[in-house]
């Protein structure tokens, strides 16, 4: 009887598994290609310009969008909104990338060392992570930016310096379970040192988790960066960034609403793609782990 039942049951679960795997792969592919395209835009931005984003022509100020002229209209200085949105890609994605890399570096270092150590260091570090998580980091970023000034590198490094607590917590929790795995214990019994074990056994196993958090952190930093620029605390005034453009558009909401729509679309698209990537990676990881356990 059991053989018969198995024949009936297995195909269904397998098909289901296949479907869910396909779906998460689809999400992954879509989001990765959107993000990839956005990065290509950021890297090769001059090819996408229809006008010089810095060139202003006051005779063309506040023009509404048109196919023949400015695609997304012009702003109060007669600058082309479309080209400025394109120019904003390099700024936003660049800051997001640098900040995420720095945040991951700090978060992984703290998380792994907190989980690996069994003594006082763990207590201290996990407290530090707790404190970092409980406090809204935007406030700290704002305060640091005040002193170090505006610009690409100050902003990117500041955001990287404050965004690590979430990463650290996730890495900490994951490392705690990983270090109890048999192969890690076996390695320890064979006399493999902590450092080598962390690099050969822990970090590779952490990779999928880190990919997921990194994608979400990237999205979060895009929000933080454009928010700071919007407040006039991020990019120097006049730089073509989405936050700056939104801030400028506030004065012309009545006469030139199109000044807002370009940057809003770009922000939402970039954040959406990054979040989707995170979800896709997460789904792939989960379907993998269920397959292993089956």
């Amino acid at each position, binding site marked *: 009887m059991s053989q018969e039942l198995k024949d009936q049951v297995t195909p269904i679960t397998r098909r289901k598994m296949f479907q869910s795997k396909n779906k998460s792969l689809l999400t992954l592919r879509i989001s990765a290609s959107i993000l990839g395209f956005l990065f290509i835009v950021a890297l090769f931005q001059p090819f996408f310009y229809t006008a010089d984003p810095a060139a202003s022509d006051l005779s063309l100020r506040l023009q509404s969008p048109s196919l023949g002229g400015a695609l997304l209209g012009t702003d109060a200085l007669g600058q082309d909104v479309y080209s400025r949105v394109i120019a904003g890609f390099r700024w936003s994605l660049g800051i997001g990338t640098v900040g995420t890399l720095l945040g991951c570096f700090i978060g992984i270092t703290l998380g792994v060392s907190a989980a690996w150590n069994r003594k006082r260091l763990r207590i201290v570090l996990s407290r530090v992570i707790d404190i970092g998580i409980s406090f809204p980091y935007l406030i700290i970023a*704002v305060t640091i930016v*005040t002193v170090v000034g505006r610009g690409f590198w100050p902003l990117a490094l500041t955001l990287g310096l404050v965004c690590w607590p979430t990463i650290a917590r996730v890495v900490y929790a994951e490392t705690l379970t990983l270090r109890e795995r048999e192969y890690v214990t076996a390695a320890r019994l064979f006399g493999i040192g902590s450092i080598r074990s962390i690099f050969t056994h822990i970090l590779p196993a952490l990779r999928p988790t880190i990919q997921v958090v990194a994608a979400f952190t990237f999205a979060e930093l895009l929000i933080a960066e454009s928010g700071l620029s*919007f407040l006039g605390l991020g990019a120097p005034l006049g730089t073509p960034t989405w936050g700056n453009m939104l801030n400028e558009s506030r004065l012309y909401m009545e006469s030139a609403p199109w000044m807002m729509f370009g940057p809003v679309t770009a922000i939402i698209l970039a954040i959406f793609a990054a*979040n989707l990537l995170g979800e896709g990676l997460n789904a792939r990881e989960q379907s993998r782990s269920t397959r292993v356990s089956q």
Partner: protein
Amino acid sequence: MKAVGSRLLQLVVLLGTISTTLFLLLRLSGDPAILLAGEGASPETIDAIRADYGFDKSLLQQYLMFLWDIVRLDFGRSLVNSQPALGFVLQYLPSTLHLTFLAVFFNSIIAIPAGVWLGAKPTQRRRKILSTVVSVAQGTPAYVIGLLLIQIFSVWLGWLPSIAGTGTWAWVLPTATLSFALAPNLIRVVAASVEDTTRQDYYRTAKANGAAPNVLLIKHSLPNALLSTTSLLGAQFAFLLSGALITEYIFAWPGLGLILVQSITNLDFPTIQATVFVVAYLVFIVNLLMDQVFRLADPRLRRSQL
């Protein structure tokens, strides 16, 4: 009591770190007297500030003086209007708290029922609604929502005012902005925890004993589900104190966020520092309250603490 102690330690460490960072950054980035005096200050003003803040003393002495001032809650005078910075900041506290409470309240009365509805019977369609709502809303920062709401309701329709201080209706758009920003997350967590309770043993037992669906939901599922929601509400309250920063700026709302942005634009360091301290203190209070609510609400925790 132990929980209070550890939270208090957290607060002290946090405030110590922030103020030390600020202290070092200010000293590293050139002459702090010039920075504090602002651009275009006369040499006399700069000298006066230097003597006033003791910048002519050694770094360690300065640091100790600085810490002592903070312990006494003396942040110096605002460089813009020369009021004591802390008092100046505290004037703006009620309006921020008011907005925060309204946002948390409206957020809860919208998101909790929605979450319960989505989580109580996790059908394919409801799951789809949930994931769409969450992924769309996650990708929309609060200030984008705020700007779009202003564009639609103030500029195009002309129904609601977009600037603070113009009567009761001025509350609507800021509250809506913050609620929109917070609701998706809350909906997701409520739905997930309601769904989680339906898989518990005690729930299955109650169901097998023939409890009616409504009784199951209200008596067996909700209390446990809302417990895990409480911690998110606390985190959201903390987030609001910084998320409201941008919202307050958009709506020219006279609160802590607006003060922080203004004092940063004016490089008014005493006020910046006082604001950050007030926010940190508020977060501390909220976390402490949440700990207590948790202990009151969860008998298991209460027993283990006793």
